[in-house]
């Protein structure tokens, strides 16, 4: 199989890189720290009509917003945390353990809460009908996992290191390898979906989704650390990635009442 010819109508990487550099420069001159991605980030072309143009409206959380959905043992099979044993055979690729803690802004563990992940396979292909990237599907890898955090907020997945994959934001656009994470806190307002990246990826500087977080310190919070103590002898490489949720609003005493 040969590579398909790039469609002529897509913009070159140089155009996107120049836009991203201009936004970075402007940000560095503001002196105001941002910790989240911009919703209005034109280099991510799909965002142009999908971001609010009005400022987010400040609200005091009340009622159900001060609580989060509750998940438990009945919701999840412990085997769902191992993405390498899900389909009757061994998936191809680098077996990898990804582990860390989920804590709130005060550093308190988020206990017994749901963590969901999804990712491409080692060849950079998702099991999704919209992913037509001509890389092979792996019959033994779905790329979906779930677990509950433990009493220390800890989570742990065994998976295959995902490959980078191409997309059509612009010509020769490639996403850095990543794992999607979906997290709940102890309050509704702590809900977050994000992506974990692997250290040293050469695609970081070229990727509009990663670069939509303008602050370099904030971006680096999405990059896992290689951890040789997590790596297992003759079995799997290991990465550690801790997640900090916003908040909380409720006081520790109220939390204890829960």
């Amino acid at each position: 199989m040969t590579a398909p010819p790039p469609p002529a109508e897509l913009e070159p990487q140089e155009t996107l890189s120049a836009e991203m550099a201009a936004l970075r420069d402007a940000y560095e001159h503001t002196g105001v720290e941002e910790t989240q991605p911009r919703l209005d980030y034109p280099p991510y072309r799909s965002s142009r009509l999908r971001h609010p143009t009005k400022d987010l409206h400040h609200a005091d959380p009340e009622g159900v917003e001060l609580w989060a959905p509750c998940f438990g043992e009945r919701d999840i099979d412990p085997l769902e945390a191992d993405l390498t044993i899900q389909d009757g055979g061994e998936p191809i690729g680098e077996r990898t353990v990804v582990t860390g803690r989920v804590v709130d802004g005060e550093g308190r563990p988020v206990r017994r809460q749901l963590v969901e992940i999804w990712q491409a396979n080692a060849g950079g292909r998702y099991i999704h009908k919209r992913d037509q990237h001509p890389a092979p599907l792996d019959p033994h890898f779905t790329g979906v996992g779930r677990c509950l955090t433990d009493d220390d907020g800890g989570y742990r997945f065994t998976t295959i290191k995902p490959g980078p994959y191409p997309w059509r934001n612009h010509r020769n656009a490639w996403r850095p390898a990543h794992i999607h994470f979906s997290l709940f806190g102890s309050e509704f307002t702590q809900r977050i979906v994000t992506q974990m990246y692997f250290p040293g990826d050469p695609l970081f500087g070229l990727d509009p989704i990663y670069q939509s977080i303008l602050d370099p310190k904030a971006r680096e919070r999405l990059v896992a650390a290689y951890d040789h103590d997590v790596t297992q002898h003759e079995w799997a490489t290991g990465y550690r990635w801790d997640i900090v949720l916003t908040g909380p609003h409720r006081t520790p005493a109220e939390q204890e009442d829960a």
Partner: protein
Amino acid sequence: MTRSATPGQTVGPFFHYALPYPGDRELVPPGTAGAVLLHGTVRDGDGAAIPDALLEIWQADPDGRVLQRAGSLRRDGFTFTGFGRAATDASGRYSFSTLVPGAVEGGLPFFAVTVFARGLLNRLFTRAYLPLADGAEPDALLRSAGDRAGTLLCVADDHGFRFDVHLQGDGETVFLSYPGHRGD
């Protein structure tokens, strides 16, 4: 010591085989006594329907109790958990079968809503209030939303409530941030 929050990222285009699950949008089985349909369309700044969005709702039970019950991922048809999840279909529509939320601690009853989509770089929060009962006064949030407050209100229809979401443009939904949250 306060820690900086981990940034969000878009849910992307490929969440459909991971986040939806059987029964995700059925907080109660359709046809259950008291079941209502909460539904709507998610639209972009051109008014086009968004076929790759995902909504979550989190609500009190009809008595205004905030529940802490497991079982949302493996529904048994009898346990109301208050949580549901629904991806939009090819026409940008979502729907939930649920119960009417009651008022919590004297507030107005609402569904807390989270919106995710391809092209949306971070999740958005909003509230879908039940239509105001006769004589009911708007609460502080509705008052502060001024002439945009209507975007926060469900519209009653034959089977329950309609709540459309406009990410941008005419009738852009009021989306919320919680300034008590550091790093938000």
